[in-house]
């Protein structure tokens, strides 16, 4: 998912150094579905986990502006252009309030952005795939936002209040994006042969990366148990992946598109779709920085940051001068 890097890196539960009574009271509140607020006591490891999860989510929104932004200047109708600009803008907005949510845990946005630019912080693997045709803008809305919603709706009930509240708004917008993406695909599938082929091509490219967004299989995921105990995470990777597949396959059928998985079948006994094996070597490569666009995405973020430095410095210098002028006037 947007925070799949959590399933990869080193991790600790960290209760040992915290006061046992405080920890016990904290866990009791979490168990009672109380919201933990910024000034409340919390275990260090809970704070660290949240900072990393929220930051990865924020970074994913920011890097996620790039693949779809790639089609803003070429959107094939003015209506689609307006929808796309507004959508990419929403993603930036999500990044902004997620960075704010992370700041309530005591980490400055600049620090988090530096971690993204240095390559130290992770963001979702999905945004390291290219948008080769217009249909990819639709596939991202339909599949990527669709997958994100599966993960994010439970996060609206996350134990940490500021994150949960940010997710309420984000989910509302993401589900709007998902419908817009699907509607874009529907227009293509009801269009010319060439448009339909474009839609199928996009599904072929984005299906498996979307399925992988949920992160490693439960067998290999290190963090699920502790995060579930803290009610940061409510479902396992595989549970969410299954929901996504069950939800999406009928949508593809309605579009008249073929899911690129010859082993995909509906199991009448379980009521679930069973998918074929996932190529985890591809996932590992993308997470380690060797996906098709990892380098370009980071380079684009670094370029924007570097080329914007003089602007940010100007804004800071002007604000400082203004403050001095106001102070002088007050004297």
């Amino acid at each position, binding site marked *: 998912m947007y925070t799949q890097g959590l399933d990869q890196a080193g991790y600790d539960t960290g209760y040992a150094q915290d006061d046992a009574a405080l920890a016990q009271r904290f866990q009791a509140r979490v168990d009672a579905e109380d919201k933990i607020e910024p000034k409340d006591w919390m275990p260090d490891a809970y704070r660290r986990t949240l900072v990393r999860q929220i930051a990865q989510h924020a970074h994913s929104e920011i890097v996620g502006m790039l693949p779809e932004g790639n089609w803003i200047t070429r959107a*094939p109708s003015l209506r689609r252009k307006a929808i796309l600009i507004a959508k990419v803008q929403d993603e930036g907005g999500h990044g902004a309030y997620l*960075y704010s949510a992370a700041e309530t845990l005591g980490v400055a946005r600049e620090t988090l952005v530096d971690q993204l630019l240095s390559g130290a912080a992770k963001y979702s693997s999905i945004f390291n795939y290219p948008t080769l045709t217009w249909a990819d803008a639709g596939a991202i809305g339909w599949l990527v936002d669709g997958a994100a919603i599966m993960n994010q709706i439970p996060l609206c009930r996350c134990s940490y209040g500021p994150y949960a509240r940010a997710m309420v708004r984000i989910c509302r917008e993401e589900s709007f994006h998902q419908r817009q993406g699907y509607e874009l695909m529907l227009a293509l599938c009801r269009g010319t042969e*060439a448009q339909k082929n474009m839609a199928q091509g996009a599904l072929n490219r984005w299906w498996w990366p979307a399925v992988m967004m949920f992160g490693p299989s439960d067998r290999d995921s290190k963090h699920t148990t502790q995060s579930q105990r803290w009610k940061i995470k409510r479902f396992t990777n595989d549970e969410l992946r299954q929901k996504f597949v069950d939800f999406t396959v009928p949508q593809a059928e309605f579009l008249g598109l073929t899911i690129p998985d010859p082993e995909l079948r509906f199991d009448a006994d379980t009521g679930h779709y069973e998918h074929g094996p996932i190529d985890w070597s591809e996932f590992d490569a993308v997470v380690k920085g060797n996906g098709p666009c990892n380098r370009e995405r980071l380079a684009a973020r670094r370029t924007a940051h570097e080329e914007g430095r003089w602007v*940010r*410095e*100007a804004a800071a210098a002007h604000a400082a001068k203004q403050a001095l002028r106001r102070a002088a006037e007050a004297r």
Partner: protein
Amino acid sequence: MANDPRFDYALHLADNALVLAQRLGAWVGHAPELEEDLGLANLALDLLGQARLCYAYAAEIEGRGRTEDDFAYFRDEDEFRNCLLCEQPNGDFGHTIARHFYFSAYQQALYTALAAGPDARFAEIAAQGLRETRYHVRYSANWLVRLGDGTAESHARAQAAVDTLWPYVHELFESAAVDRAASAFAPAPESLRSAFERTLEATLAEATLRMPSDDWQPRGGKDGRHSEHLSYLLAEMQSLARAHPGARW
């Protein structure tokens, strides 16, 4: 109805807004700060909305079933009636801000006059646009002040941007054929200049920037004679739509 001056005028307004929106759209995801990604996207969306209203009006006046997308995607460069200023490249953030400040200060004066004009539709479009344009003036003026007053580097960059784009300001205030034909319902461009200059002088003074002085006054955009930049902008914008003529999106 062919040869209705409102048709050409509506296209002129729409083209200004669309071409500038297209330029601004290219910033989204690449701005100096996240807040500016959001801000520049807002400006682009406002202008795109204004362009669509004007194209819709042009389509109605023409009455031949053409749509906003026919106007945007299936006209050639010499049919576009936007001013040269709008098609100038983004350059650095300072150039984008200077271009935007010049254009929105002009557009504010224009929309103020149109909103009080005799054509009900233009008045309606202008009144709605004016609310947005006032914000655009404020956004770009605030940035011009920050850049001009900020650091030595930002001051130099802002002055260079203001100077580089200045020659394209003159066309905004010169009557071309499209303006002369519209004299019954639209203000003469020359009449808008004093309001523009008041905004300009106040902002440049606060930004500690000097008034540009340059006698070069390129023109022709409103007659369909553009700079080299527009054909690239259109080639990119129109490429997908033109690869699939007749397709619905």
